[in-house]
């Protein structure tokens, strides 16, 4: 019986992420929210390194003008960022096993060509538990018109 149990355990290498992580939904949510904040801060600090780990290599984002940008585009964009402050107004995480959907609203303040700007944006990001960590695989940003 012990052998059978061991074989079954070995066969179960692809168990859902929650089992694999041994974390509660609340822990996972907290972790993802923290990474979303790191993502925002990367723009303020012009620090692409922080994003290397957060963004999956296959990451794609749809911008407000309908353009699709990749991980490489984001990393290049961050170094030239004109963002001075990102204020998170709301954020909700919905878990679907090893996938998480995050929606939220951010207020972005910055300076572009000497002119101050402030833009409220709604985003939706998809996170995936992959190789023992959460990475983001897709996103969409759209401006909120007041």
């Amino acid at each position, binding site marked *: 019986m012990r052998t059978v149990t061991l074989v*079954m355990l070995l066969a179960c290498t692809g168990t859902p992420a929650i089992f694999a992580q041994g974390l509660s939904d609340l822990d996972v949510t907290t972790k993802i929210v923290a990474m979303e904040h790191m993502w925002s801060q990367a723009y303020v600090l012009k620090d692409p390194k922080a994003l290397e780990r957060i963004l999956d290599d296959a990451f794609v984002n749809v911008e407000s003008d309908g353009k699709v940008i990749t991980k490489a585009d984001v990393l290049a964009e961050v170094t030239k960022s004109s963002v001075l402050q990102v204020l998170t107004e709301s954020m909700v995480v919905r878990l679907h096993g090893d996938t998480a959907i995050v929606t939220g609203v951010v207020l972005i303040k910055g300076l572009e060509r000497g002119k101050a700007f402030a833009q409220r944006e709604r985003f939706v990001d998809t996170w995936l538990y992959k190789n023992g960590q959460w990475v983001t695989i*897709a996103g969409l940003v*759209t401006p*909120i018109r007041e």
Partner: protein
Amino acid sequence: MKTMGWWLMVVCALSLSVSTQEGNEGSAATAIRAREREWVVAQSRNDNRALDLIFDDSLVYVEYGRLVTKGDYLSRIKRATAQLSQIVMEPMAVRTFGSTAIAVGIYRERTVQEGKVRVKRWRFIDTWVYKKGSWVLVAAGAAPLTE
């Protein structure tokens, strides 16, 4: 011990189903494309029953800076007049990650308002999750293409 064995079998069955998805990326992408088409057809027919099966209950849809839930989306379809808008899909890219898939593409929306025909192209990005034997839409968003 018997209980432990049963529990392991259940977990194994779950993980094997995920592994099957992983080893079958081509067919998963085909299934997603079919689901995207079903969505368009259901929407054009104001078929809320079909949309209810395509959308996960926790679906979030984002457009024009607004967040739309499954309930909001279905009631909007219910109110809309059938055939007033026509959607034509252009080729899309589907990337699968086990039981999760991302579809990115463009669709053309033709609407008739006050006798005038308007055509707008949208870029969409959709997240699908394999749940209880079928792919369901958990998140979607679209942005108008500025050309």
